């Protein structure tokens, strides 16, 4: 069986930056991804990133993806695409499907960077063709360059809903409206302002009541909701749309790591069930690390930084670099990462991450570590 020092599962921003950091320090690493193209969700992000220069602010997501891939190529990191990992066990054997057969690799460390999946909400007509996740729409318009609809209703005003609405207009579609069940817009004001400048209405305290159409979406009915998110009868409004996008949050994809029975914690601020981990991204299963959205849904910039931290910590634990050097580098990245967790939006992430670290410390104490 082939042996490596580090198997990275997921070639998105977290997995790639983790692989790059550890490879830079001499770790023998291989990256697996179930998709035919690497980069995770990065290549669909056609907007300029926020943050600081170190976070590559002002650079469009897909450019950052290209830079990452170039670095990985330069370092000669093998990235096995179209190779879904179907199993990992406590002996750190990784089973994957490649060339139509199941293959195995044994490793010393695993970095799980499997990302997150879109949530759904159900309503009458939600199964009709023309109801899609916002991420799905983003893939279609920015990667495949096809428009799945010309008249859009966007459900959700978090950053995903706001950004994808804007990108739909850039793709030539008409966004008829956004609805948000809460009484406030969820995402950044500047993203909302772009939508408003395009004269698109944002209905707060509204939800989608029904999607209508014979074989595909032809109409959407939206309605106002009360403080318990119950539809207020009589407030229904019909909108002529052919595409309904659901931008209602993301949940970490923990199915694979659950095969190891890694201790988890429920953190609503970060998307749901998350594998317990310390500040160096190591989970309760020794030698297994997490990074990116699977370790808590934040942003691409956070995924990049968390991946780097994991990569450096892994290199140190494999004794490729001394602990002092590793700590210094990790501290620098952590300071930068925490810059993203400031302000009214970032604080939520900060709280969520602190919950995880505190729970991890408690668990470690219980184990008598």
């Amino acid at each position: 069986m082939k042996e490596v020092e580090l198997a990275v599962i997921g070639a998105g921003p977290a997995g790639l930056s983790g692989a790059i950091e550890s490879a830079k320090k001499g770790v023998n690493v291989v990256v697996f991804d179930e998709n035919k193209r690497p980069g995770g969700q990065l290549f669909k992000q056609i907007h300029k990133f926020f943050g600081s220069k170190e976070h590559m602010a002002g650079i469009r997501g897909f450019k950052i993806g290209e830079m990452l891939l170039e670095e990985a190529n330069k370092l000669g990191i093998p990235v096995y695409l179209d190779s879904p990992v179907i199993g990992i066990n406590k002996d750190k054997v990784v089973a994957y499907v490649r060339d139509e057969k199941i293959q195995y690799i044994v490793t010393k460390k695993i970095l799980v960077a499997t990302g997150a999946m879109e949530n759904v909400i159900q309503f009458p007509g939600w199964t009709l063709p023309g109801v899609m996740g916002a991420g799905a729409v983003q893939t279609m318009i920015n990667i495949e360059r096809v428009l799945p609809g010309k008249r859009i209703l966007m459900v959700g005003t978090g950053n995903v809903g706001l950004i994808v609405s804007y990108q739909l207009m850039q793709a030539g579609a008409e966004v008829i409206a956004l609805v948000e069940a809460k009484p406030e817009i969820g995402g950044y004001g500047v993203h909302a302002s772009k939508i408003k400048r395009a004269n698109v209405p944002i209905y707060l305290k509204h939800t989608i009541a029904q999607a209508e159409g014979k074989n595909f979406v032809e109409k959407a009915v939206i309605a106002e909701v009360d403080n318990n998110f119950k539809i207020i009868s009589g407030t229904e409004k019909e909108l002529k749309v052919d595409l309904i996008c659901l931008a209602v949050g993301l949940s970490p994809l923990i199915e694979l790591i659950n095969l190891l029975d890694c201790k988890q914690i429920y953190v609503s601020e970060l998307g749901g069930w998350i594998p317990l981990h310390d500040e160096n991204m190591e989970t309760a299963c020794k030698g297994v690390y997490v990074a990116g959205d699977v370790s808590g849904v934040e942003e691409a910039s956070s995924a990049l930084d968390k991946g780097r931290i994991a990569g450096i910590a892994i290199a140190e634990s494999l004794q490729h670099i001394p602990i002092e050097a590793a700590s210094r580098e990790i501290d620098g990245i952590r300071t930068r990462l925490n810059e993203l967790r400031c302000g009214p939006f970032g604080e939520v992430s900060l709280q969520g991450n602190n919950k995880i670290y505190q729970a991890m410390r408690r668990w470690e104490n219980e184990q008598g570590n």
Partner: protein
Amino acid sequence: MNNNRIIHHQILGNLPECKWVKITVDGKRIKAREGETIAAALIAAGVKVFRYSVKRDEPRSLFCAIGRCTDCVMIVNNRPNVRTCVTLVENGMKIETQKGLGKRQINHEGS
């Protein structure tokens, strides 16, 4: 022509030149771009329904576009339950609307 392709885009630039392949969808010939997914080709061609559900025979199409939900499966080259959102087009591919679980029509010489 019902073509939902995004030709011009301020950020992505113009749609690059590419090789075109020919596929059929329920017998109808459509053009597809080499390297794109079946789902993308179908959406570009204006195909709205990909399959009908098992129990209630309801129309379904693309939902997650990431290979997880299986709402987009169709019969491809006589093989049912192929996820069209992660499968790339190939010249001469035969795509059919799948009804229910679909029937596997494979002879022993090839799949």
